[in-house]
């Protein structure tokens, strides 16, 4: 049971990482980040079967943070879109030296 759960968690996480690395659309990148978080959540739940409820407490913690992050992140993306009429990350390089 644990092994399968961890396997799926790893698959989900990898999908998330690849998505973050390869996609250009800010919304999709953002969703991939959420995917990674949920992959970690899955691992936590799986481990809590073995090591006690602390993992489940952490899951709630992560979900709260993720919700807050979603709110802030989406707001930023909307503001960005209003400003530049695009959410393509390649066009956004204000940090370039």
């Amino acid at each position, binding site marked *: 049971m644990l092994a399968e759960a961890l396997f799926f968690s790893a698959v989900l996480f990898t999908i998330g990482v690849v998505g973050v*690395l390869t996609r*250009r659309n800010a919304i999709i*990148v953002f969703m991939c980040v959420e995917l990674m978080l949920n992959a970690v959540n899955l691992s936590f739940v799986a481990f809590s079967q073995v090591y006690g409820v602390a993992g489940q407490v952490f899951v709630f913690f992560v979900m709260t943070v993720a919700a807050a992050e979603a709110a802030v992140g989406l707001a930023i993306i909307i503001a960005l879109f209003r400003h530049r009429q695009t959410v393509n*990350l*390649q066009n*956004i390089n204000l*940090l*370039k*030296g």
Partner: protein
Amino acid sequence: MLPASFALLQEAAGVAHPLAGTAARWMWALPLLPLLGFVINGALSIVSAYHAGPADPGAHPHDAHPSVEERHEAHTGHDVTGGGAHGDDHHVVVRHRFAGLATIIGPGVMVLAFGLAVAIFAAMRGAGDAALHTPFVQRYFEWMPVGDLRIDAAFQLDQLSMVMILVITGVGMLIHLFSVGYMQDDPSYPRYFAYLNLFVAFMLVLVMGASYPVMFVGWEGVGLCSYLLIGFWYLDKANADAGKKAFIMNRIGDFGFLVAMFMLYANIGTLEFEGVRAQATALGPSVVTWICLFFFLGCTGKSAQIPLYTWLPDAMAGPTPVSALIHAATMVTAGVYLIARSNFLFSLSPVASLTVVVIGALTAIFAASIGLKQWDIKKVLAYSTVSQLGYMFIGVGSGAYVSGVFHLVTHAFFKALLFLGSGSVIFAMHRAYHATHSAEDAQDMRNMGGLRRYMPWTFWLMLAATLAIAGFPPFAGFFSKDAILGTVFLRARESTLADAHWLGIPGNIILYACYVLGLAAAFMTAVYMTRMLIYTFLGPNRSGERERDFLGEAPWIMTGPLLVLGVLSVAGGWLNLPESIPIGRVGLLEHWLDPVVGESTLRITHGAAVEASSTIEYSLIGAAVLIALAGIVVAWVMLRPERLVPKREARQEEGFERVLANKYYVDEIYDDAVVQPTVGVSRNLLWEGIDQGLIDNVMVKYIGTGVPRLFGWLGSQLQSGQVGTYAWVLVVGVLFVLGAFTIR
């Protein structure tokens, strides 16, 4: 606490001394009296000039001073406008509102101080010779007690300082009185007396100090007063320049004084005269020579000797009584006093003593030659002063300390008289030009001539002084100058100086040469002084038709002091008659100063009093008289006052005369060789080159700011701004770290 310790220190020092119970116990009052005068006169001056500014000086600069107009009105009335009895400045004559009070206090404290000095002198005479072989020292408080360095605020009274005190307070008093008339219309009348009083206070500290540092207080203090008084009419740039020049050149000398003190302390651990005197023989010969040479550097500054003499002629920018007091009678002789005071050091170093003689002789002839061709009456006297100071240094340098001090005293009489007399002349000329609103130079001899008719008293007194300085017997200068020249001649025959070598030249040759130079300078002195007298008082008057009606004798407050000085100039020689001319009591000053300088004089003469055959004595005297006479006659025969034209019509001098009139261009040489390069190097190399250029630009701007910027630029190049790139870097980094942990 202070008075208690004061009494205690005094008790401890004075208990055994015969002067302890006499008037000498009040000697601390001598400098304090003029200091008090300074405080009161200074307060009068500043209070009358001060108008409080607004509470908020920065607010609305233009309309916040409603009273500024009337304030300004008040200013022009009686404040410092610069000018006074000088030059061609015709201000409105309004006496200072505190003039009466300042007149009472300024000369008043001097009268008191002179009275006290006479009382102390009487006490010293009364105490008897035998008792006075040690100076009377009063300690007041610890000035700088640090570790083994003990410098007390202490005064000492001995025969040498007594002579100086009498000269300073006596001549000083006369000059204060003269100033009452001379400065009467000056808008800064109390300020003048404040400075003059302060000068006397510092001068007394100088001669009364019991240690070199206390003397140095007076030494620099008189320099300060000289600075303030030369620049008294400070709105004229030339005056302010002259004051600054005097101060800075004196400071070059003070550098020498300071280093000499450091060397003394480093070698014998004390700076008090008595301590140094006791331990001087323990010093190594080269150390003594260096100490003496550094002290002498101080003397060349203060006493205007080569190479630091150029400030003294410029110092004539001050009021004329100041020139008489500071730049003739007292302050400039401080260097002579210093050497006479340090006789226990200089007598140990023949090389340093020879240096003093050589510099003195060169200065005497050099300055005298410049004096031949000056037109400004005060400039003539200024170069004459430099020249006469040279004589004094020949005296004290050759170990004739008594003769040097003797000439110092007689010179104080006749040179003060000459300056005050010239002040009287300038006063009359200025008054005349003032009355006719003329802008002529009131000090140029080409504008004078024939003044004998208008101011006979001044003429006869000036004549006496001229004969005195020219060395005409039996006036004061004859005896003192003859004493100096005679001693040099005798020293060349037999003394430690004659045995020594100076820059490889045998000392006796140098001394003979200096004797000849001294005679030549005496000749020139007679020439230029007669010239001054002829051009000023004889011949036709050149001051102008209208001005002639206004020429006349000065008020009695000015002529009175002249009379007293006249008597002293005539009779001053009786202070120290040589044995060869026994027309009174012989060798009074010599006997008086013996406890102070006798030992050192003997050391120089190999322990024996030099006896010269009367043939030599009389031929020396004869030579001196002949030289003086020759000078007077030459001037009388060659100069034609009736051919002179007023200054504005005069033509330029030609050839060597021009070189003399331009003082050998020494000022220009100093300016080009020292002043300009120093300022130039400071500005271009040090300030703009090193400070602005190297440190601020290269180090701070390029390296200090540039290097961090370069690193910043390099780092910023790593930033693409692409989130994807950052994510890749992150993932690679995470994998790397995880991998590193796994492999381990």
